[in-house]
């Protein structure tokens, strides 16, 4: 079973990297780009657990290790199907 977790800075936290990417896109003429937020992607493979257990573990792992809850938020989904996990 494969899961994709997306970690990004909270909306309330300034993202200097995203801002720089946005400015670069503007310089290239993409004036329609209003905002860019940069984040990190984790693809995690799980074995020996069912979906229910995975749905409990993934937010726990994301909160404890992958994201720093003071500045970051995360969302996640099961890969390979349409069923999406909840975001925080």
């Amino acid at each position, binding site marked *: 079973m494969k899961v994709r977790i997306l970690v990004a*800075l909270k909306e309330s*936290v300034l993202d*200097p*990297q995203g801002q*720089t990417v946005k400015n670069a896109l503007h310089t290239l003429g993409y004036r329609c780009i209003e905002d860019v937020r940069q984040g990190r992607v984790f693809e995690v493979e799980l074995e020996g657990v069912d979906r229910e257990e995975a749905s409990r573990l993934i937010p726990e792992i994301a909160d404890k*290790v*992958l994201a*720093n809850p*003071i500045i970051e938020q995360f969302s996640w989904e099961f890969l390979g199907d349409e069923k999406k996990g909840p975001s925080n």
Partner: protein
Amino acid sequence: MRFGVVVFPGSNCDYDTLYVLRDVLHQEAVFLWHKDHDLRNSDCVILPGGFSYGDYLRPGAIAKFSPLMQEVQEFAARGGLVLGICNGFQILLELGLLPGAMLRNKNLKFLCQFVHLRVDNADTPFSNRARPGQILRIPIAHFDGNYYAPAEVLKDLEARGGVVFRYVDERGRATEQANINGSVANIAGVVNPRGNVMGMMPHPERASEAILGSEDGYLIFESMIHWCAAR
């Protein structure tokens, strides 16, 4: 007084710190391996600068799970002195021993230069040998030193004198220009409510001898020794 300097894979200011403690301040100092469960009777623990675990994930994010960090947390809970310098500060934030988090520097550059700091709280175990408002010249060397704390945390920090050092200009003014990495409220160093855990981005161990351009960092180690001796 006996200092313990924690060594993680990727620490690179551990030897500088040990040197300053032993050869400049003439104190006992030992290395503490991050995988051990032993603080070796240290009176004070220092988490030095560097790039523990290559800054993978986030600076300090992996180091916080090192076995020795359990002992460091218990030591801090008993009131033991813990100083985190640069990456050590980032680790203390990740551990939750200090409030807030670090973001990438506002200009997205690794900054390695001398900065001016103002002592905004001279009544801590780490700053008691300084005068209130004294301006120190100490170098920084970091990519992620843009200190951030949510508004309510910042309010509490300011109200209780939790901000020990601020980035200022040479005349002591906390201007936007002097705020080199973009930290909220020009914050360069913070202390916990109990006063026994401090983190700072600048490197006092790189400025403890005149030959290196500044002796101002000496004050911080001297303060710790003074505080422990008076206890």
